[in-house]
């Protein structure tokens, strides 16, 4: 037990060091790499907190997708070498002091939190058998707080709409400006031919296992998105134009299925987003499958960025 505590303390120290270097690194690129490392470390931290579902999401999104997105941005921004004009020392000291105060306040709230632990876990565990699911987190996401999950999908679509709206007028409905490899490269092509089939199997496995064990639509969808991006980057397939009908159907498929099941619940189970007794599990699995497709499409398109005018290529 003591070894575990020591290891945890070391892990915390490492996370703090890497986290600090994302802030204090001199070049933006260094900060981005530190952030990728930080995301991978956080996945281990979440495992130590016994939150496997979160660890899966963090490893996929925090380390992988965000890292790729930020690396691309750092590479493009490198073209503008502006002198990093930092705030003056007194300002930094002052900001540092206030931020330390905020952190101390948060830490104090943690340490002085009431002895009586408020938890919704018993309520969730009590009602979980009625949904037929084995994973309490999936139960919360799709039954207990289904409205949050539905709205989150809408947020993803809104963000995508925002990204696409940044395209110049003539590029609307064009191909996303995702950076692809400069010229065909046999090694990368090989990777992009072998890895995606493996990734697709893992993604489907994640989605399928999510009902009973950690995993689910988010994690599965992220893997599928990453594999799609890999294929596009390796020049094995073109990114679809943002006006592509199939792409748009894929994007709204999940939320539409979710919403129609929710509306059907209004008739069949007397409440919005309620599932008729006995049908909860098949309905949730159907929603998860539909959402996996939509999440994959939305995340990949978010990472691909706004459409680009053709002549700039």
């Amino acid at each position, binding site marked *: 037990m003591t070894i575990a505590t020591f290891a945890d303390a070391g892990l915390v120290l490492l996370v703090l060091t890497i986290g600090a270097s994302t802030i204090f690194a001199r070049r933006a690129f260094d900060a981005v790499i530190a952030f990728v490392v930080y995301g991978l470390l956080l996945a281990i931290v979440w495992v130590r907190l016994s939150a496997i579902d979160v660890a899966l999401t963090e490893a996929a999104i925090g380390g992988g997708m965000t890292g790729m997105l930020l690396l691309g941005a750092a590479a493009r921004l490198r073209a503008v070498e502006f002198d990093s004009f930092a705030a003056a020392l007194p300002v930094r000291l002052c900001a540092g002091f206030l931020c330390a105060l905020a952190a101390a306040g948060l830490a104090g709230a943690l340490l002085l939190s009431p002895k009586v632990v408020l938890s919704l876990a018993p309520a969730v565990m009590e009602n979980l058998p009625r949904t037929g699911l084995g994973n309490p987190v999936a139960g919360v996401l799709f039954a207990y707080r289904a409205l949050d999950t539905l709205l989150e999908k809408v947020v993803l679509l809104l963000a995508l709409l925002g990204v696409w709206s940044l395209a110049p007028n003539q590029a609307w409905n064009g191909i996303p400006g995702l950076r692809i490899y400069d010229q065909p490269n046999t090694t990368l092509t090989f*990777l992009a031919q072998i890895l995606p089939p493996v990734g697709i199997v893992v993604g489907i496995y994640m989605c399928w296992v999510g009902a009973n064990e950690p995993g689910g639509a988010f994690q599965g969808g992220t893997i599928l998105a990453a594999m799609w991006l890999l294929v596009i980057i390796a020049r094995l397939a073109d990114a679809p134009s943002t006006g592509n009908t199939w792409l748009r159907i894929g994007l709204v498929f999940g939320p539409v299925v979710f919403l129609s099941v929710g509306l059907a619940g209004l008739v069949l189970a007397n409440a919005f987003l309620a599932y008729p007794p006995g049908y909860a599990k098949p309905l949730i699995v159907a929603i998860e499958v539909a959402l996996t497709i939509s999440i994959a499409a939305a995340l990949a398109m978010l990472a691909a960025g706004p459409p680009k005018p053709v002549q700039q290529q």
Partner: protein
Amino acid sequence: MAFARDLFTVLALVAGALFFLAGTVGLIRFPDQLTRLHALTKVDNLGLGLVILGLLPQADGWFGAFKLVSVWLLVQFSGAVVTQLIAGALRERGPCA
């Protein structure tokens, strides 16, 4: 039998951990980037390979063992290809890349 199994695990894990140590020392000490890449791949194949070999007898059932081996194969494959990619980029663009 259980003792032999545990002994095997201990030996393989210690050997794997030593390769992790060797790989990281190489990564720190080796003079140029291509040799450092070489040290990195040793961690991928031998370090992780021995760790997984040691964990296999403790795995729960055939499916658990299968998953462990497939994780190793995945790391092995993607590690090798990525190293190749980085080395290619280094050769094309020079050591400062």
